[in-house]
């Protein structure tokens, strides 16, 4: 079978252009990676971008208001001043920008495109699903682009600044879909995405940007796309989540532990490639599976997780596979309306208790 994805070890500058960009960029200032200090999710992404720009003199960043203004979320802070020729503002043209990124990537310039909000990716949909996703299958030419997508709700931003669009892309062969939940993963998986020879959609959860922080490991830590993580070990029930709902599940697991129930929380980290083995191993152990995500229910990624488990874990299950997700409707603006709809700790607990009763 002809491969859909370029092999990760072959980051091949397809067209073999040998660009001369002048003198090497200045070294990173110490302010970027302070030892022993906690780093927020958004700053972890900033560090990942800065380190990759320094590592690869061909890497280009494009997006709306990311250069001198340093991004709507300040994710590109300090980057344009250091790399003015490679950190570029674009017009309001999502399709044009992604198309340009594809052309540049094919000719040897891996490119990271920032969507100001994940919602706006719909304007660049065709370039991603038809040009980028199918390029390797059609031509066996790598297309190393990353689209960064500040996504998700819980911040009172209304129908067009709150969506979780990952499902649109998980269904398209040829795209990798990454949804980090922690600051360390945000940095390590972003680096892996940038070095991957395939188009990668990198969903950053806006709610997590400044709400979580941790001490990041030192050095050039590069994650692996396609490896889930056991966020909390347990043996009574498996909670499968990604992005912000990993934290919802951890809170729920904490509360269940008070009752003596040990829930295992699996953080998928990447939807595509999907780490089916880790999820299956967990469910074989716990015999119960609850999938939690903030994207809508119908054909959300949880549907795929449930279907795969129904296929492979059926002999091990003691209870039906359940999902706790956002309902099939747009995201309302008023916080009181939105909060009712988001998957919460209480909804996860209620579903978990139902499964544990079987």
């Amino acid at each position, binding site marked *: 079978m002809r491969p859909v994805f370029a092999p990760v070890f072959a980051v091949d500058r397809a*067209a073999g252009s040998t660009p001369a960009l002048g003198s090497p960029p200045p070294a990173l200032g110490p302010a970027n990676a302070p030892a022993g200090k906690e780093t927020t999710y958004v700053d972890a992404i900033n560090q990942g971008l800065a380190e990759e720009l320094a590592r690869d003199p061909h890497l280009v960043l494009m997006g709306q208001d990311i250069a001198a203004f340093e991004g709507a979320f300040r994710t590109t802070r300090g980057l344009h001043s250091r790399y003015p*020729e490679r950190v570029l503002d674009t017009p309001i043209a999502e399709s*044009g920008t992604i198309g340009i990124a594809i052309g540049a990537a094919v000719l040897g310039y891996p490119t990271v495109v920032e969507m100001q909000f994940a919602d706006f990716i719909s304007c660049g949909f065709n370039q991603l699903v038809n040009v980028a996703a199918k390029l390797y299958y059609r031509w066996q030419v790598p297309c190393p682009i990353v689209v960064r997508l500040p996504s998700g709700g819980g911040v009172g931003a209304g129908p067009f600044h709150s969506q979780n669009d990952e499902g649109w892309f998980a269904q398209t062969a040829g795209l990798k879909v990454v949804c980090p939940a922690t600051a360390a993963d945000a940095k390590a998986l972003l680096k892996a995405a940038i070095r991957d020879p395939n188009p990668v959609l990198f969903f950053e959860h806006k709610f997590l940007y400044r709400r979580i922080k941790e001490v990041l490991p030192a050095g050039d830590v590069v994650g692996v796309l396609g490896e889930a993580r056991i966020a909390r070990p347990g043996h009574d029930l498996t909670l499968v989540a990604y992005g912000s709902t990993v934290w919802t599940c951890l809170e729920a697991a904490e509360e269940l532990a008070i009752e003596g129930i040990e829930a295992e929380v699996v953080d998928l980290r990447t939807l595509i490639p999907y780490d089916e083995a880790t999820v299956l191993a967990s469910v074989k152990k716990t015999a119960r599976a609850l999938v939690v995500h903030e994207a809508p229910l119908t054909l959300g990624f949880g549907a795929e997780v449930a279907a795969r488990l129904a296929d492979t874990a059926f002999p091990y299950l003691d209870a039906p596979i359940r999902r706790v997700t956002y309902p099939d409707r747009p995201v309302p603006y008023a916080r009181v309306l939105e909060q009712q709809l988001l998957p919460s700790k209480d909804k996860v607990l209620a579903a978990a208790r139902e499964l544990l009763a079987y």
Partner: protein
Amino acid sequence: MTTAPVSSASPATSGLADIARERLRRYAFMKLARDFDSRFEALLLTGRVSKWYSEVGNEATTVPAGLMLAPGDALCTLHRDLGAILAVYLDPARAFPEMGFGEPDGRRPDPVEILVRLACQLLGKGAGFSQGVERSFHYGYLAPEHGILHLGMISHLGSMIPVAAGCAFAHQLAGSGRLAVNFIGEGGTSTGDFHEGLNMAAVWKLPLVLVIENNRYAFSTPAHLQYAARQLSDRGVGYGIAAETVDGNDPDAMAAALARAAARARAGEGPTLLEAMLGRMRGHSEGDDSLKVVPAEELERYGAGLCPAARKRGRPRPRAARAAGRADRRARRARHLARARRRGPGPIDRHAARLRARLRG
């Protein structure tokens, strides 16, 4: 930014012998493109290919565009740009050894091998560029070792304009003085990607030459239902870029306009929009019945005077007189074919009608 030499010399500054050689070179490629195309039209009729998009009538635009490219320039084609592809793939000295095009350039692949590979691609065979997974002109051939960077199309028209602009952006970053050329039909100019790609190319002053092949019909939709502008090159003002409308059936005029555009691109002066006025001499795809939207008188006109291969002006002689005669005969055959098509349904149409009737019944 360093500036590479522009490959195709401007006729105004060359000697008469050079002009004659340039014309002969263009003519050789136009003729080859049309012969190649005719073979595939025949293969379609016998069912050996499932679909054929003919470039008959576009050669005087596509061939000069291909010949304008220097090694390492990016070529981004649609489905009526065979002439440009041949001009980029083939070393004229080796492809036409009897015509005195000088010494082989030593960089491009063996002409016979590459033509066989191209034919295999178009026939959907494993030895083609895409090993059979992509149809017709949707393949890519990125061979920097030969100085060839050819990106084919996706079916969504307009989509490749930003991608071509991205190739131009890569060349700009590399400071290589290279450019990207991209084709679009007049129908494709109505897409959002035409606007986004061209606008970004203009804002970033990218070395992009965008050639509109305006044959005035998009499948069946005539130009007046596609755009309200007097001419599409008028849009250049809106983007702040150079733009001109050229007789796309005049290879001399096209070559001159393309040379101006390439010089601007290589000098860092940004993109150029060229509107090449062409005739619609074939269907959208062959056998799809869409040639019937072209009025009979209009088709006649293409055959008689507009068709580049049948034109007196710019035709090299006497060396290629015999070849020119063959092209004239071919143009006449094309006219007969068009007439024949207008007379009534052919065997394929009749078969399709019977099938439809059976399905309805």
